[in-house]
C-alpha cells in the first residue's frame, strides 16, 4: 500500500487558519515560509489568561500548550529595565512564538496525516479488505513524513541553534552587567568618605 504524504501548506489545513498572519522575521530569521495561525484564544501559546501577582519579581512559566507543547513564559518587567534586558526579553518572547508556530503546525500536520491514514484503513476494515494495521504501512507513513519535511526541519534546527546561542549569550551579558552594577554600587558606600 503506497502512502503519499503531502506537504500541507498552512492555508490547506482548513478554515482554522484565518487571515491574520503572524510573520516571524527576527534578525537573521530565514524560515522562508509564513505560518498563518488564527487568533483563537485556545491556539495561542497561552491557553489561559493567567496573570501573576503584581508584587512578583520573577518570571512565571505555564503549562504546555495543547498543540505545540511549548510552555509560555510571562516575563517580569522590572522598573529599571535596561536596553539589554529589554532586548533579551523581546528575543525570548519572539522565540517562544516562533517555536509555538513551528510545533503547532508540525503536530497538527502529523496528526492530520495520521488520521487520514487511519480513516482510509478503517474504511478498508469495514469493507472487509483489511483486518489489521501493519507496521509496514506505519513505517512508510513515518518515513514519508520525515522525507517531505526534511528541509523544513533542517531550517528549523539551524534557526533554533542560532536563537538559543543568542539568548544564552544575552543572558550571560545581562547577568554580568547586573553583577558589575551590584559590585560598583556597593563600592562607594563601603569606601570611607
Amino acid at each position: 500500500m503506497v502512502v503519499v504524504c503531502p506537504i500541507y501548506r498552512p492555508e490547506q489545513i482548513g478554515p482554522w487558519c484565518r487571515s491574520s498572519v503572524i510573520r516571524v522575521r527576527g534578525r537573521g530569521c530565514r524560515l522562508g515560509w509564513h505560518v498563518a495561525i488564527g487568533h483563537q484564544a485556545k491556539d495561542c501559546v497561552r491557553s489561559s489568561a493567567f496573570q501573576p501577582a503584581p508584587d512578583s519579581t520573577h518570571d512565571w512559566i505555564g503549562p504546555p500548550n495543547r498543540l505545540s507543547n511549548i510552555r509560555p513564559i510571562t516575563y517580569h518587567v522590572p522598573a529599571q529595565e535596561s536596553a539589554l534586558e529589554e532586548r533579551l526579553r523581546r528575543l525570548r518572547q519572539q522565540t517562544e512564538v516562533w517555536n509555538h508556530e513551528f510545533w503547532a503546525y508540525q503536530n497538527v500536520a502529523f496528526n492530520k496525516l495520521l488520521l487520514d491514514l487511519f480513516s482510509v484503513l478503517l474504511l478498508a476494515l469495514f469493507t472487509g479488505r483489511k483486518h489489521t494495521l501493519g507496521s509496514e504501512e506505519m513505517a512508510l507513513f513515518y518515513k514519508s513524513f520525515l522525507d517531505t519535511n526534511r528541509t523544513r526541519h533542517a531550517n528549523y534546527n539551524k534557526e533554533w541553534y542560532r536563537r538559543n546561542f543568542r539568548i544564552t549569550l544575552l543572558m550571560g551579558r545581562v547577568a554580568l552587567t547586573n553583577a558589575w552594577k551590584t559590585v560598583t554600587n556597593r563600592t562607594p558606600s563601603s569606601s570611607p568618605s
Partner: protein
Amino acid sequence: MFKTPCTRLSGLVGASVSQKLLGNASINYQTARSLIHLYRKDPSNWITYQQLHFLKRQYVTKGSSELHQRAVPKQTPAIPVLDERDDSVVQRVQHVQAIYPPHPADIMPQPDDVTSEEVVLPVISNALPSAERTLLKKGSERETSNETPHLHVETDEAREARLDRQWKELKVDVSELPGVYARLAKSRLTALVVVTAAAGFAMAPVPFDPGMFALACLGTGLASCSANSINQYFEVPFDSNMNRTKNRPLVRGQISPLHAVSFALACGVPGVALLTLAVNPLTGFLGALNIFLYTCCYTPLKRLSIVNTWVGAVVGAIPPVMGWTAATGSLDPAALLMGAFLYSWQFPHFNALSWNLREDYSRGGYRMMSVTHPDMCRRVALRHSVALVGLSCLGPAAGLTTWTFPLVSLPINLYISYLALRFYHRADRGSARKLFFCSLWHLPMLLLLALTCKKPAKEQSGADLPSANPVPS
C-alpha cells in the same frame, strides 16, 4: 503493560464508535464516515498526538549510555491522577477490543467484551463544534441501556482554573537543585558510563591503583555530566514534544539555559582538567573528544541523518578505552577491543529501543534508522549481535582475556543473536522489546565474564614466572 500507540489508537477509534456501530451496522457506517469527516474539518479540535498517549506506559529511563534505555513498568493507579495534566479533557471509558467488521448474526451490543482495565480517553468536548456535539449526544441517546456514566465534561471555567494552577514561578529553589542537577546530568546514565570506564580500568593488565581508579571514575563522571547537560540544553523544544523527555528540568523551566550551561562548564572543565593533569593527557584528550562528539556531532546529527547512530555508538565505546588508558597510559589493541565490544553492543540495544519509539521520533523530526530505513535497522542490529561472537573470539588474540572467554560468553552472545534474528524476521514490537531487555543484562554479564577471564598481568609479557597467581582486580 506497554501498549503501542497503534493498538491504542485502534482502541480509541474502536471505543468511540463501537457502541454505535455494534447497534446498527448501516447507520453507524454513515456515522463513522461523518465522524471521521467532521474530525477532518477543524484541525484545532483534533485529538493531538499527546492525547493519544493516555494508556499506562512504561517509563523509559536512561540506561548505561545515551543510547541505552531501561524500561521500568510504571505502577499507575487505576484512575491516574495527573500532576500536570495536558490541556485536554479527560474521559474515562472502558476499553473495548479492537473493532472487527460486524457480522449480521451478532449485532447485539456486547458489554461482556469490555475489559476491566480503565482507560483514560482524552476528548475535547466543549471545544467541539456544535454539529459534533449533537452527533455525540445522539449517539449517547441511542444507548438507553448502556449510558456512559464515565463521561466527565470539564467546563471552560474549570479548565481555566486548572490551567491557572499549573503556572509556576521561575525561581530557583535551592533545596531542589541537587535533584534538578541529577536530572540535568542524567545521573543514572552517567553512573553506567562510569561503570563501563571502571570495567576498562579493571581489565587493564597493570597492578590496580585505587587512587588512579577513583580519579579516572570521577573525571569520566564529570565529563559525562557536562555532555548530558549540554545535550539537554540543545534539545529543549524537541524534548518538550516527546513523552519520554517532557519532564526534563529545562523543559519545565526549573533552571534557565544559562544556568544549565554554567553547570555544564563547571562539570566539564574540572573533569577534563582532572583527567589531563591528574591521570594522563591521553585520557583527558579522550574525555574532551567524547564530549565534543556527543554534543556537537551526535546531538545535531540526530535530526539530520541516520549516521547519528554510528556516531553515538562511538561515543558509547570511548569510556572503557578511557578507563584502560587511565590505567596503562597507552592505547593497546586490547583497549580498542573493549571499545569494539561496546560499539557493537550499542546497535541491538538502540535499534530495538528505537523501534518502539518510531511515532515519537517521526513526529519530533528525529531521523533514526527505525523510522527511515526499517530494514537496515533490523539488519544492522542482527549484524552487530553476531559480531559480538566474533569479537569475543578476538579476546585471547588481543591479549585482553584468556581462551576461556569466547567459550563462556558464547551462550549469552548466541542468545542475543537469536533474539536479533527473531527481531529481523518478525519486525514487531514484542521481538524488539525482548531484544532490548536482553541487551540490558547482556552487557553487564559480558563485562563480568571478561573480568573473570582477564589475562593475568605476568603471563601477558610471555615470560615464565614461578608465581603465576593472577593479579586480583
